C-alpha cells in the first residue's frame, strides 16, 4: 500500500468520525467512542496485516474496522441499530465484529479482547494455520489484571499474538500519568519476557514499519510481541462528553502532530500529491461517508422476532 492510499484510508476514518459527531450534535443518534486522532495507528497496523491474520479490538474500533476494509455503510447501520449492520443491530458501536474480515471478537469490557486473544491464537497454532492475532487495546486496559495474565499466558505458550497498545494518554476520564508510574506500557513486556517497542503512533509509516517488523518477529518464532503506538485521543471518552476535562495546553501540541496533517504535508512536500489531489481525496472520503449515512438511515430496523434469535447456537 503506498502513502497516498494510506492517507486515503485515514481520511475515510476522519470523515466517518466527523460525520458521526455532526449527527450526534444534530439529533437523536447513539453515542460512540471516537477514534479521531488515532487514524495513523489503525491504518499503519492494518496495512501490515494480511488476510490470514485475525483481529480482536475494543470499543474505540471504527478506525480499525474501516482500515481493515469494512463497509462504512454497514458500520453505520450497526451503530444505528439497523438489521443491515454487521451484527444485525445487536452490537451497536461498541462491540462490532466482522468475521469475514478476520475481526473475530470485539469486547467493550476494557481488557475483554486481551482475555480472548490467547484462545484465538492457540486455536490457530494448534491447527497450524498461518497468520498472527492482532489484539488492540488502550493504556487503560493495560491497567487491568487481564493484561498481565494474557501476556504471561501468551509468552508461556509462545502464542502468535501481536499485542497493540494504542496509548492515547487517556483512560476514560483519567490521565495515564495518574495511574501508571511507567511512562510506556511497552516497559511492562520485559518481565514476561516479550519483545516490545514504542512507536510514534501519529506517524503512519512508522506504525506500518514497526507492525511489519513485529509480525516478522512473531513468525520467526520469537513469541508474542507488544507494540505500543504513542498517540492521542482528540475527542472526549465518549460522544456525550463536553470535553472540558481536556485542557487547551495539552490539546495544542497534539493537534500540531495530527496524523493526517502530517502525512498530507509530507506527501505535498515530497511531490507525491498536489493540492488538487489532496482535495479530491478528501472529497472522495466525505462522499463515501455521505453514501454510507444514506444507506444506514434508509436501512430497515430489525424485526421484533429478532429479539430472541442467536442467543443459543
Amino acid at each position, binding site marked *: 500500500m503506498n502513502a497516498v492510499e494510506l492517507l486515503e484510508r485515514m481520511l475515510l476514518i476522519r470523515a466517518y468520525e466527523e460525520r458521526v459527531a455532526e449527527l450526534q450534535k444534530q439529533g437523536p443518534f447513539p453515542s460512540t467512542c471516537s477514534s479521531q486522532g488515532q487514524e495513523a495507528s489503525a491504518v499503519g497496523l492494518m496495512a501490515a496485516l494480511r488476510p490470514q491474520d485475525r483481529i*480482536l479490538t475494543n470499543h474505540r474500533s471504527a478506525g480499525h474496522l474501516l482500515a481493515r476494509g469494512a463497509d462504512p455503510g454497514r458500520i453505520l447501520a450497526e451503530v444505528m441499530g439497523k438489521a443491515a*449492520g*454487521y*451484527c*444485525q*443491530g*445487536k*452490537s451497536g458501536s461498541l*462491540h462490532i*465484529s466482522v*468475521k469475514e474480515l478476520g475481526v*473475530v*471478537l470485539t*469486547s467493550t*469490557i476494557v*481488557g*475483554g479482547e*486481551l*482475555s*480472548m*486473544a*490467547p*484462545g*484465538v*491464537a*492457540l*486455536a*490457530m497454532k*494448534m491447527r497450524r494455520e498461518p497468520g498472527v492475532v492482532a489484539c488492540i487495546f488502550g493504556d487503560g486496559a493495560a491497567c487491568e*489484571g*487481564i493484561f498481565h*495474565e*494474557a501476556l*504471561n*499466558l501468551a509468552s*508461556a*505458550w509462545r502464542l502468535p499474538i501481536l499485542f497493540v497498545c494504542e496509548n492515547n494518554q487517556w483512560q476514560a476520564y483519567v490521565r495515564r500519568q495518574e495511574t501508571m508510574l511507567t511512562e510506556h506500557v511497552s516497559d511492562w513486556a520485559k518481565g514476561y519476557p516479550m519483545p516490545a517497542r514504542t512507536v510514534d503512533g501519529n506517524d503512519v509509516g512508522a506504525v506500518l514499519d514497526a507492525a511489519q517488523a513485529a509480525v516478522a518477529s512473531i513468525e520467526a518464532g520469537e513469541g508474542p510481541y507488544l507494540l505500543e503506538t504513542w498517540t492521542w485521543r482528540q475527542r472526549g471518552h465518549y460522544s456525550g462528553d463536553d470535553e472540558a476535562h481536556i485542557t487547551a495546553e495539552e490539546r495544542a501540541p497534539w493537534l500540531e502532530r495530527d496524523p493526517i496533517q502530517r502525512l498530507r504535508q509530507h506527501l505535498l512536500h515530497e511531490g507525491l500529491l498536489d493540492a488538487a489531489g489532496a482535495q479530491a481525496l478528501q472529497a472522495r472520503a466525505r462522499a463515501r461517508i455521505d453514501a454510507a449515512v444514506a444507506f444506514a438511515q434508509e436501512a430497515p430496523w430489525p424485526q421484533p422476532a429478532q429479539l430472541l*434469535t*442467536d*442467543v*443459543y*447456537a
Partner: protein
Amino acid sequence: MKSLTAQQALHEALREEMARDDAVLLMGEGMATLRPDLVETFGAERVRNTPLSEAAIAGCAVGASAMGLRPVIDLLYAPFFTYAMDALVNSAGKLRYMSGGQFSFPLVALAQTGAGWGVGAQHSHNLEAWFVHSPGLKVVMPSTPADVKGLLKSAIRDDNPVVFLLDMTLGFTPGEVAEEPEAALVPLGQAAVRRAGRDVTLVSYAKSVGTCLQAAEALAGEGVEAEVIDLRSLKPLDLDTVLRSVRRTGRLVVVHEAGPLCGVGAEVACAVAERAFDALKAPVRRVTSADVPTPASFALEQVFVPQAGQVVAVVQELMGTKAPAAA
C-alpha cells in the same frame, strides 16, 4: 453397566470425548498434572496445565471456542469462577447474540461446589443461580456418576457454553454407569424422576437429591408417597416434568443447598404458581441453606446444609399430619 465414582465418570467422559473429537481441548490448573494418562494418549498440546489465572483460562476458552475448538476448562472450585465472570458471562454468554450470530462458543467450564468438606465459603459457594440468570449459558449440576458422565459428554458436544458444577461430596460416591460410550449420553435439559409418588413433589438437584430420597423413604414409613425429581440441568430447566408431577400431587417442595434468594427454587416455585396454581392443595415450600456464607465448621455446615428431617417436617406440614411450627 459398571461401577464408577463421579470423579472416575468425569474422567471417562473427558477421555471418550477427546477420542471422539480432535477439537476437544483440556485446560486448567493441574489439568495435565492430574490427568497424565490423557496427556499420554492425546498429547500435551491438547491437555494443558495453565497459570493460576482463572480470567485468562476462561478467556482463552472463549477465544478458542470461537475458532471452532471445544475447550473444557477446570477452574477447580465454584468461587474461583468469580475471577472468570467477564469471560463466561460477558463474552461466552453474550457475544453470539451481540455479533448477530457470527460466532458460537462450544466450551465447558468445570468446577466443584457445595458444602461438606469444611473448606469454607471461598471454596464452597453454590452460585449456580448466577449463571442461570446469565443469557447464553447453560448450567448443569448432576447428582449421580451416570449423569456426570452422560451430561458432561453432552455438554462437550453442545455448541453453547456450559457451566458444569459437581457437588464435592458426590465425587467419590460410586454408581452404575453404562459401558458403551454412546449409551452413556444424557441430554441436557431433561429432569429425571428418581422416585415416583402421588402425595407430594420434591424437586431438587445435586446432593440435595439424596436428601430428598432419604426424606421420601422416611415419609413412606408414614404412608406418604413423595415423588423425587432431579432437575440435572438448571438451564435449560425442564419445567414440564415438574409441572406434570405437581398437577398430580398438588404439593411442591423445592430443596437445594444454595441460598433461597432469587434461586432455582424461587424460579420453580414461581413457574408452578403461574402455570399450575389450580392444582395446588397447599402452599409451595422451599428447604434451602440460609443466606449466609458456607461455614467451615463441620457442626455449622450440618446446620447450613438442608437435612432430610427438615424436608420430612415440611412435607408433614403440607399434608396436615403435623401442626405448623411457630414462626
